[in-house]
């Protein structure tokens, strides 16, 4: 079976999954509305759908950062992953935005109400505007890369604009949470910076994983240029990004555990939760070992597992952060517990599958139709 045939199989599988989960979610939401979610007015206002949205958004910007920095600073070695990263950034964003639309009370109204509100004081207004220009910039970049003889030198201006927009979207996403001073679990001036590093980490993990997926996880089918790039550059960068992310996690956890501000007690709950431990030990430390130990770092299986673990760790990190910041109930009286509890409902889990299937379908469609691995001219 050829790689392209397997890609078609992946595409059809993703489409089938999308249709099934889409039908289930439609049935659930049309029957129960947002009561199908486990969010409530006690304090968990933003639940798993927002986690999914931000996860996919930041993954998208991370992939865009990888692609644009590769164009600007990477040289020809990075050529094999650039088009794939740009397309994947669009696919991921589509999955995230689809979930956001299902979470909003009035998604269609949002399409006109936000752009024409000129609500300059709102981080969400700037986030939406930045995302809009970011998508436009990605589309222009992609369109220029569709030419068979696309050249990295010609794309520098586009890459600068896209990089600035990707950084802006990510930083503003951090400001949305970091500016909430009365929620100490969220509030910190370094959150936008932490988001940028998390985003970059996600971008690196996703491009490695989906590059292997493009070749149906068959190392023999992976072109030598791609394998060389992974072995020489990307695995090292991924390990460095994991390390930096770990520093942010440890720093925030230490401050949180020692801090005495009302609201930081959430850290005691988070730091002992199995999810958090899985994130740190399985999702970050294990990949770090796999990617730095000489015996494993150039092994395709180790690279795939490391990337997959990081992808999951970042989803957990996004979940712990967004939900954790809302666990202390605000003025709800003794009938609300000291810390709220929250578990995603089945419908909310289905939203994750919708995002995954939609992104994978779009990605596989691009792999099949656009031949994303096509490298273009090395020397214009």
């Amino acid at each position, binding site marked *: 079976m050829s790689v392209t045939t397997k890609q078609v199989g992946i595409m059809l599988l993703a489409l089938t999954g999308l249709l099934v989960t889409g039908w289930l979610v439609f049935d659930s939401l049309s029957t129960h509305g*947002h009561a199908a*979610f486990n969010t409530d007015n*006690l304090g968990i206002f933003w639940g798993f759908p927002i986690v999914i949205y931000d996860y996919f958004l930041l993954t998208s910007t991370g992939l865009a950062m990888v692609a644009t920095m590769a164009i600007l600073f990477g040289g020809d070695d990075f050529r094999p992953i650039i088009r794939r990263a740009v397309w994947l950034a669009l696919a991921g964003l589509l999955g995230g935005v689809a979930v956001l639309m299902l979470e909003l009370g009035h998604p269609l109204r949002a399409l006109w109400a936000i752009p024409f509100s000129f609500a300059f004081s*709102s981080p969400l207004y700037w986030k939406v505007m930045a995302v809009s220009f970011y998508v436009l910039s990605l589309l222009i970049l992609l369109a220029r890369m569709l030419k068979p003889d696309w050249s990295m030198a010609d794309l520098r201006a586009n890459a600068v604009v896209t990089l600035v927009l990707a950084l802006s979207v990510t930083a503003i996403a951090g400001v949305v949470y970091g500016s909430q001073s009365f929620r100490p679990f969220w509030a910190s001036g370094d959150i936008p910076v932490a988001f940028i590093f998390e985003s970059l980490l996600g971008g690196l993990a996703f491009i490695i994983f989906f590059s292997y997926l493009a070749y149906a996880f068959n190392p023999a089918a992976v072109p030598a240029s791609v394998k060389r790039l992974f072995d020489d550059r990307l695995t090292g960068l991924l390990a460095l990004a994991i390390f930096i992310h770990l520093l942010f996690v440890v720093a925030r956890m230490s401050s949180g555990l020692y801090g005495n501000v*009302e609201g930081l007690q959430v850290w005691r709950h988070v730091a002992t939760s199995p999810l958090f431990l899985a994130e740190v030990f399985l999702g970050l430390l294990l990949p770090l070992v796999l990617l730095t130990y000489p015996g494993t770092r150039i092994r395709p299986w180790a690279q795939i597992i490391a990337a997959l673990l990081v992808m999951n760790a970042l989803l957990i990190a996004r979940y712990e952060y967004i939900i954790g910041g809302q666990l202390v*109930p605000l003025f709800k009286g003794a009938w609300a517990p000291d810390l709220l509890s929250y578990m995603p409902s089945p419908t909310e889990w289905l939203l994750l599958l919708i995002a995954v299937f939609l992104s994978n379908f779009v990605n596989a469609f691009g792999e099949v139709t656009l031949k994303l691995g096509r490298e273009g001219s090395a020397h214009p």
Partner: protein
Amino acid sequence: MAKWGMVIDLDKCTGCQACTTACTMENNRLPGENWQDVLFYHEGTYPNVKLMWFPRPCMHCENASCVSVCPTKATYKDPDGGFVLMDYNKCIGCKYCQVACPYGVRFYVDERAIVQPDIRGVFPSDTDRVWDPPYKGPHDDPARGIGIQPHGVVSKCTFCYHKVSKAPKGVPDLDEDIPALKEYVPACVRVCPPKARFFGDLDQPNSRVNRLIADNRGVRLKDHTGNKPQVYYLSGGATASVPSLRSSRASGQA
């Protein structure tokens, strides 16, 4: 132009919830989704337990964080009166205002009902409104968040805009004991049995609310957030008090 504000004397509040009930009736609130509530807290463990209560409406902040974060300007500060209001026609239900409100006084009611049975199923609505109760207030102004809440939007206390905004111009205080003014008094203030609530114009130096704040060292809740509430609390240290914590962590129960 007036800047309406409320003073709540915690030494007089008995926690009877008459304010909550009146607000619920006046504004057709769903059970448990109380724009105005009296919150009960307890500290300590048996036999050394202290029960406290705390009345909490929307603070109608001068510098409201819910207003500044709204991406569609659906929530806004009314320049004539200082009300913080919702425009249901602009709200997209993103809930950022709920997240950004330090006082927990905003409500998105399309989710699971807090109080069972879910009364929305008992009185379902055929329109875009969340429910259709047998008794409905006569006022309906979606651009100011008045009337039964539609689906997919966030709602909040309006300081009974539909009453207060009709008050004669220049009145320093809206006192339920003055027959000519009682129809303009917010529902929670009007029904308060121990008269723990006062409502007036904070921009008039001689208003009763200003005198109460000055004479009794009125405080604003969580003033450090910079929101500058227009609701002030008076407390001489009797039963009711402003809780310093949002949880009972300090009492060893966390």
